[in-house]
């Protein structure tokens, strides 16, 4: 059976506060799926529901089509990094992995293998209490990889990692996906996922905002825009606005033009004698796309409240 993560119409409230509200999505293998939303959007809650740690009030959260609690040797089916701090500070890194391995009938040597894989082999016999956040993050990733599971879930894995670590984890995530695994990575920073994720599940206020491929999302946001860098910004804006374009200021010497093709902009500016240094197609960032999407979510939520 193909590995998968699936959330079906899940609702969860904590003491009357809605954390997840009718959420449904499916994560497919072979891709890195980014799970994004602002803080408090319900990302961690959804992950806890998938791991059977919390029980949904309604709906189902399934791993490979089954509830997590019914899995045999679950660490060989799903690996998860939820909280890098969830290690007893007095325990040696290797012992932390050993008890997990033994609970699932995984060979002890896997502990050494994954420690090696995450670059903690040298501190395998050091107590976790002395680890930096980055080291604990790596230990948590080692724990997720322990059972060589086809499904992996990482909650904010780049927290506390140095730039080298961030590059390392991006490569790791891509490698895991290319091996045909299900990889779900949550983040509240869209930019982090820009070069990593293939698909995105975007949630806001516990609801699904978008479930889409990254290129499609970018295309939907990047309308035909052209960036112009010019020392004569106000002149350029006048000329282009008169020609019917929408012009916005982007930086000290830059403007973004919408509604005119690049060639026409060049000839208009040339005809008006306005010099420009650079003219290029504007590429929307994932960050902008995300802002666009979540703004919609907020508006939707507000409208919803008004309707009541």
């Amino acid at each position, binding site marked *: 059976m193909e590995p998968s993560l699936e959330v079906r119409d899940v609702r969860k409230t904590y003491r009357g506060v809605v954390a997840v509200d009718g959420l449904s999505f499916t994560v497919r293998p072979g891709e890195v799926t980014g799970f994004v939303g602002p803080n408090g959007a319900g990302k961690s809650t959804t992950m*806890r529901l998938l*791991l*059977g*740690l*919390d*029980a949904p009030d309604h709906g189902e959260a399934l791993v490979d089509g089954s509830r*997590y*609690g*019914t*899995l045999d040797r*679950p*660490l060989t089916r*799903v690996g*998860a990094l*939820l*909280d890098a*701090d*969830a*290690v*007893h500070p*007095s*325990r*040696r890194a290797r*012992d*932390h992995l*050993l*008890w*997990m391995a*033994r*609970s*699932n*009938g995984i060979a002890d040597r896997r502990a050494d293998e994954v420690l090696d894989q995450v670059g903690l082999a040298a501190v395998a016999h050091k107590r976790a209490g002395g680890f930096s956040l980055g080291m604990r993050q790596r230990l948590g990733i080692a*724990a997720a990889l322990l059972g060589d599971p086809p499904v992996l879930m990482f909650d904010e894995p780049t927290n506390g990692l140095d730039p080298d670590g961030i590059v390392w984890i991006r490569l790791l995530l891509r490698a895991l996906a290319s091996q045909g695994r299900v990889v779900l990575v949550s983040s509240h920073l869209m930019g982090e996922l820009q070069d990593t994720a293939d698909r995105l599940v975007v949630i806001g206020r516990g609801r699904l905002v978008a479930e889409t491929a990254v290129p499609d999302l970018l295309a939907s946001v990047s309308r035909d825009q052209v960036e112009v860098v010019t020392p004569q910004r106000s002149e350029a804006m006048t000329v282009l606005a008169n020609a019917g374009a929408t012009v916005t200021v982007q930086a000290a010497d830059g403007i973004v033009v919408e509604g005119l093709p690049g060639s026409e902009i060049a000839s208009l500016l040339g005809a008006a004698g306005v010099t420009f240094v650079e003219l290029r197609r504007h590429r929307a960032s994932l960050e902008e796309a995300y802002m666009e999407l979540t703004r919609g979510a907020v508006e939707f939520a507000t409208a919803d409240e008004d309707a009541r």
Partner: protein
Amino acid sequence: MSAVLAEWTKLRSVPRWIATLVGAAVLTVGLSALGAAGGTTDINDHPNFVTGPDGDPVADGFGFAHRTVTGDVSVTVHVTSLTPTGARADRGGPDRGTVVPRTPWTDVAAGITLKDGTEPGSSYVSVLLTGSNGVRMQSDFTQDVAGTPSADDRWLRLTRTGDEVTGFESADGVEWQQIATMTPAAVPDTAEVGPAVLSAPAVYVARGMGGASMGEHPESAVATFQDVTVTPASDGTWRGTAVTMPITDDLIAMGAAEAPSGPVLTERSGTYTVTGSGKVGPQAPDDDVVEAALLGVVAGLMALICVGALFGTSEYRRGMIRTTFTAVPRRGQVLAAKATVLGAATFVLSLVAVVASFVVAVPILQDSGMAPPAFPTPSLTDAAVVRALVLTALFMTSVTLVALAVGMLVRRSAVAITFTIVLVVLPLVAGTVLPGTSPRWLMYTTLAGGLATLRAKPPTATLAEPWALIGPGAGITVVLCYAAAALGLAWWQLRRRDA
């Protein structure tokens, strides 16, 4: 099974827990030794007992109408009356405290005794009609077999054939029923036999406010015997002897008791009237060498409670319980594995600790006076000692499991540790202060009752320690119930709550 292995790896890999577990064992032994060295007793220098045939402390005082017989013999009497006189009647009961109920060994009684001479502590066998415990057959201060519960006048018979002595009773002297056959340790071929009258002193106890005191009022009784026959008929005369304990003399010398007055035996036209005072039976002090050698358990228990609670609450520090439940989603299995691992580790360590305490502390206690004959040397092979050691280890284990379960329930170390310790210590303090037998219900309902497992001797109300009020079986049952209830509650909560 794999969950058990995982929990064992968890327990083993936190050095502080292992250190505390071993520390609990060391603390138990150390404090047991210290406690043993702390007190002295001089009971062997001022004994209230004599030494029985097997070297144990016994009481042996009664009125004895006897003649010398040799070889096989059968003696029959008809006890026509048994009347307590003396202290109890005269003084109207003890001055204060609670009267200890009369047991078959501390009753008023009349019957037949066959004895090696008239020295107190010598081997004997008796068949007796008691005031409140029916008909009994007793031998050598240890054996006691009940006959009918009759309190009416009774025919009694004692028959010796070789080494064996058989007791009979009858309501009418015609229909006889056998009570038992006993072989006393050292009644020689030529022995004394005849009517005997016992009247154990009334014992009152006052306990509470941290101490206990015991008082005895010597008492006497008079009984009449008719149809006294000895078969084969032997010549010789009946002599009356007051078999007397040295302690009785001491009390009389101090003016604390009245000397028995009048003759032991009078006879008028076949009716023999015998007056007796004293008790025939075991006279071991209620203090317990085994218990005294294990008192460090209370200290070790505190350390064990800490480990137990932390083994549970540490899961809730930093959300480690999520990792645990991710690895083993069946939460009941996690709790069962935790309890199994912690229970096994605690039981092994506790058993080692209590055996070591016993081995170390008993010689120290003997040096400070808890020695034979008042306190026979306990051996690791005595059934009562084995029971005390094993149950004490089980008690320590159960309390540790209660701490674990409370830890899983409240998720906070300080709260879990305090709560469990209070459950042990508070009833102890209250029970030591509360008077009489009133703390018994406290012992039946709290973890402190588990300390009853320390005792190798039967329960008693004559000691300051409240746990001596209940037996070890009741004590261990209480703590096992607590452990089962706490674990059950934790299991129910684990399944119900989000992690």
